[in-house]
């Protein structure tokens, strides 16, 4: 799979795309593929604050319920309302239209703990092999 070069990645298969003080957060293509058809997304409320690794959303496929972990501390400034009507956007375009939320970063240093694309592709390949 091809992953955007300018994103940062978590071991639990979330991404964050940072632009200034804000970060767009979603699930990686690996995560959506492992989950299968996504049929429900429980979005966080605007204004809610999360620490790094807090559960910020729940994504449900036909068979499974999965927690999504926040890549970096932040305050929710925007959520992808389209997912309420069309949760499969995450399957179709995980790194684009299927984003989940935008946060205002409250501790940008958290980003240093994340993987860059090279590290993530290597990590993903190992997970795929193990799977």
């Amino acid at each position, binding site marked *: 799979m091809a992953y955007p070069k300018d994103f940062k990645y978590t071991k639990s298969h979330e991404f964050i795309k940072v632009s200034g003080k804000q970060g767009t957060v979603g699930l990686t293509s690996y995560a959506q593929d492992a989950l*299968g058809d996504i049929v429900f997304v429980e979005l966080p409320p605007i204004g809610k604050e999360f620490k790094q690794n807090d559960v910020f959303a729940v994504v449900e496929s*036909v*068979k499974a319920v999965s927690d999504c972990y926040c890549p970096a501390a932040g305050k929710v400034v925007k959520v992808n309302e389209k997912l309420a009507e069309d949760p499969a956007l995450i399957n179709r375009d995980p790194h684009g239209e299927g984003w989940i939320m935008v946060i205002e970063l409250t501790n940008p240093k958290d980003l240093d703990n994340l993987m860059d694309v090279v590290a993530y592709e290597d990590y993903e390949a190992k997970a795929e092999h193990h799977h």
Partner: protein
Amino acid sequence: MDNLRKTPNYDMHFKYGGKVVDFGGWALSVQFSGILEEHKQVREKVGLFDVSHMGEATVVGEQALAFLQKLVSRDLTPMEEGQVFYTHMLYPNGGTVDDLMVTKWGPTDYFLVINASNAAKDVAWMQKLAQEFPKVKVTDLSADTAELALQGPLAPATMQKLTKVDLSKLGYYHAVRKVEVAGIPNCIISRTGYTGEDGFEVFCDPANANKLWEAIMEAGKEFGIKPIGLGARDTLRFEASMPLYGQELDQNTSPLEAGLGRFVSVDKPTPFIGQEALKKQVAEGLPKKLVGFEMVDRGIPRHNYPVAKNGKEIGYVTTGSFAPTLNKNIGNAFVPVAEAKIGNEFDVIVRGKPLKARIVKTPFYKRKK
């Protein structure tokens, strides 16, 4: 995968792109192309399932019927040769050992299909009862039998290309044995399945299972046939309100509580194991009852989520899912009998939050005939 049991079609799962998982100790595909797509495929066209993990047994001998009459809760005396009955084996307390399919080949010759997860327990249960019947022989054929299921409205057209048996004369819940399918001798064709659609279950020697798989895929090519995984198998059976052992049925649940009374002969003239307990449930009222519900609030109910009314826990979800054909979130739940009325509302506790649900009529889905 090395520590898992493999069905005779193990290689087919990889050849056809299945996502193979550990399913109760068996290596089986949860999906091939995707659960939603596979579900739709079976409702609208035809799909092929590997169900070789299911258990099979034969009950043969002069006392075969007497033995089975004591073993299961449904009266088998009206069975015709070649007919298939869905029924239950019960514990003395009325709880369920397993649900099963019984096929009658002749007055002294029956064929049983039991759940994979219960096969060892079921065979031990039957062997124990068989000690009271010296003229009956129970044989576990699970390891010597492959089973494939072909389900969907185009299953008859697909199947007819592979056999000389006139399938227009093989009624629903009827079976034939010792027939040739795709040139494979000594097969059983049973017009049964667990999806709510028309279709067949075919049994053959495990050595021929891959040949049968490929022949069915080839015959169904013109109808767009696809292999179907366990994910869609569960959503299909659930929409059709067919119970799953471990969810709607278990050792603490009688088939009456699970809403399966039409398959139970409580007043069977010859006694069966669990009969007294069922009679008591009828006389005194059922302790709990299975209902179907749909979510009013947004959220998906799941297995074992609590059900509450006015903040008090009153029951639990047995199966819950997004229902692909209905495009709704639905579930089954056990609730007290007083609450089990169509239109009654209760809360399903989803991750700590009470979400409103309403009891609806089941089956959720019924095919048009």
